[in-house]
């Protein structure tokens, strides 16, 4: 009897809990022009740790003390990106979302299932609180494009926050030693990598050309640099399962087999680059300080675009996360937007770029003393900045996280020697990815 009662009680608890799940307030139409009266407290969920977290806190403190509208932003660290997603997913069930959260594009697409993400278009275009035409044009187009979601009526659902791009780290000392320059095309890259290989007296390789980092974004970068595209025009199927990908994967396999490339674990590519165990690493521009800290002796190095099929039409992949605003009250929404807008201002984005090594989101950030001074020592930071225009966003469709796994599994299978027919493996991955897209419609 007691047991029955207990079960009934448990059912009721669960039922109450579930019934109220995921019921966000109705969408506010145009509330971008209201006035803020009285204090507004906001919470921002993020993933930054260590020095970056301190830098972010400094900027937040500055905003809190200077915004003049009694807006207070509180930072809350919520783990890695996947852990942050996990928290947001749970918070959606309980109706306990923060006002703002850092998010990848595919996260935003998922959250939109629950219709909890604020459309920023009315705020951007608000005469009173928005951005001027010039100011909007000053933000790099690919950084805005990635936050527009074709599947949700092309709305602007998030705003650039921690941006970077996929570039080639080149050890210039090695290049000088073998009489080469940083390769511009993939053919040059392959030849230069082979030339950089050095073997010890025991026949073991002591220096490789290329330390390969297996990652879906990097794969996307290879495809883009070979003139391929990632999604079909209607966004219903992937487009990376074509010849550019086959060429890229075939080259990777060929270079592993002939001993000019290898796959290090985790972040070891940084150490290997720093100890001249590899001449090239292709990675995010944001890793710069970590590379530098692994240099035992100073190394001459450069940061250039990844090799291309046609350097005149250079393209690479855009990395990094954005910030989304969740629907709440008109006041909190506006206050959140004002913070996001402030953070993307030239001065702030420059400061954030210098302290965190992410890319500034505005062109005019280059005119700030902050960046000019920083680039005197961080020459590679300037080299990366000059490539932003060539960076292309990754697909922002639902299911992209699973598609990433499909791509990475395919690459890892090739590396492990489990694939005999690379074109077939690429095509098969494409079929799997298209099924994921279909399941997520």
């Amino acid at each position, binding site marked *: 009897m*007691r047991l029955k009662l*207990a*079960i009934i*009680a*448990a*059912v009721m*608890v*669960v039922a109450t*809990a*579930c019934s109220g*799940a*995921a019921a966000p307030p109705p969408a506010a139409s145009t509330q971008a022009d209201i006035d803020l009266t009285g204090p507004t407290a906001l919470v921002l969920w993020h993933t930054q740790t260590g020095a970056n977290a301190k830098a972010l806190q400094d900027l937040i403190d500055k905003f809190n003390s200077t915004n003049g509208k009694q807006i207070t932003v509180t930072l809350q660290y919520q783990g890695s990106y*996947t852990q942050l*997603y*996990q928290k947001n*997913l749970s918070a*959606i*069930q309980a109706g306990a979302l923060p006002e703002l959260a850092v998010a990848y594009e595919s996260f935003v697409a*998922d*959250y939109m*299932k*629950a219709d909890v993400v604020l459309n920023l278009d009315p705020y951007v275009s608000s005469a009173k609180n928005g951005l001027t035409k010039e100011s909007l044009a000053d933000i790099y187009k690919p950084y805005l494009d990635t936050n527009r979601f074709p599947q949700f009526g092309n709305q602007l659902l998030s705003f650039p926050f921690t941006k970077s791009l996929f570039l080639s780290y080149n050890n210039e000392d090695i290049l000088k030693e073998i009489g080469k320059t940083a390769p511009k095309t993939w053919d040059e890259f392959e030849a230069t990598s082979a030339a950089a290989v050095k073997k010890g007296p025991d026949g073991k390789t002591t220096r490789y050309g290329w330390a390969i980092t297996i990652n879906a974004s990097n794969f996307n970068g290879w495809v883009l640099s070979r003139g391929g595209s990632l999604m079909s025009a209607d966004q219903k199927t992937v487009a990376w399962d074509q010849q550019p990908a086959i060429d890229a994967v075939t080259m990777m396999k060929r270079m592993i087999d002939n001993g000019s490339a290898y*796959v*290090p*674990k*985790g972040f*070891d590519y940084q*150490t*290997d680059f720093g100890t001249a165990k590899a001449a090239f690493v292709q990675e995010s521009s944001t890793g710069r300080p970590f590379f530098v800290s692994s240099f035992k002796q100073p190394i001459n190095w450069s940061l250039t675009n990844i090799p291309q099929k046609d350097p005149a039409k250079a393209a690479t992949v855009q990395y990094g996360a954005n910030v989304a605003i969740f629907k709440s009250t008109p006041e909190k929404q506006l206050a959140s937007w004002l913070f996001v807008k402030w953070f993307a201002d030239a001065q702030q984005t420059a400061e954030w770029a210098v302290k965190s090594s992410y890319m500034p989101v505005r062109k005019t950030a280059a005119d700030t003393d902050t960046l000019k001074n920083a680039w005197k020592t961080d020459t590679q930071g300037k080299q990366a900045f000059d490539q932003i225009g060539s960076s292309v966003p990754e697909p922002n469709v639902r299911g992209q*996280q*699973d598609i990433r796994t499909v791509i990475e*599994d395919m690459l*890892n*299978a090739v590396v*492990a*020697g*489990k694939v005999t027919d690379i074109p077939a493996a690429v095509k098969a991955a494409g079929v799997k990815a298209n*099924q994921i897209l279909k*399941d997520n419609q």
Partner: protein
Amino acid sequence: MTPVAVRATRRRRILAENLLAYAFLLPAMLILIVFHFAGGFAAVVMSLFKWDIVPGAFRGLDNYQTVLVGARAEEFWHSLSVTLTYTAITVPLEIVISLVLAYLLFQKMKGRGIYRTLYYLPYITSVIAAGVIFNWLMNPSYGLFNQVLELIGIGPQKWLDEPRGLLELISGGALAGWAAGPSLALVGVSLFTIWHFIGFQVVLFLAGLGNISSEYYEAARLDGANERQLFTKITLPLLSPTTFFVATIATIGALKAFNQIYVMTNGGPLETTKTLGYEIFHVFFQQGRIDLGAAMAVLLTILILLFTLFQFRVAERRVHYG
């Protein structure tokens, strides 16, 4: 007293005992019902609906169909086979090793305290910290494991990044497919698990050994029993409640395995370490498919339930309670 009065007294006593027992159970049951049973019940509910980020239409058993024979069948059965392999590797080894170690440690001997402390160390190390250490030991470029392999003339291995089977590697690629055996990565995770839990099981066995009255041993010694007979005729039977407990807990733990995977490999490489526990987490919290994750969780619970019932049926008959 009349027979009626006796019966009434007995009834009252039984009633009193019943009430007292329920009172003893109440605090624990309250917490368990609210946080475990209700949660499990909610999982059953979630598995009956379309629940993709947000709850949708009632779908009956459709989610189970998707998981068992539909679009998710391949990954479900794959992770189930990983789970069973992992359980088959870890549980028997853990029990045998820890039983032997505990028995040796229980003897009066010099340095017993030091040994005990050393053996407990892995278990008292948090999984996250221990996972960090093992990742470091198994690092393909800078790790200690490869250094040891080099000393005995074996080439460097990729350990947690190696999707190829153990037997495939040993046979130089001759054995493939099913015969390739568990991936080296899964072997690595299993080594970590055994290392981590040995101390835990040694603790349990030691407590069990402590509960065996020394009089039994003294009596047997007087009867002229030797060490080996003491172990097989007294220790093993009298320790059987503990052994049964350890076996049950270790099996359930292995079938639910998640933390080790989360810390060590995230299910990779090529999903060769993706246990069902990790798959459920992945479907729930990385794909937002609460419905399918819940269905998988219910299926895993049923599987564990069957395993445990089997263990109870087969083993408890042989378990000897004092």
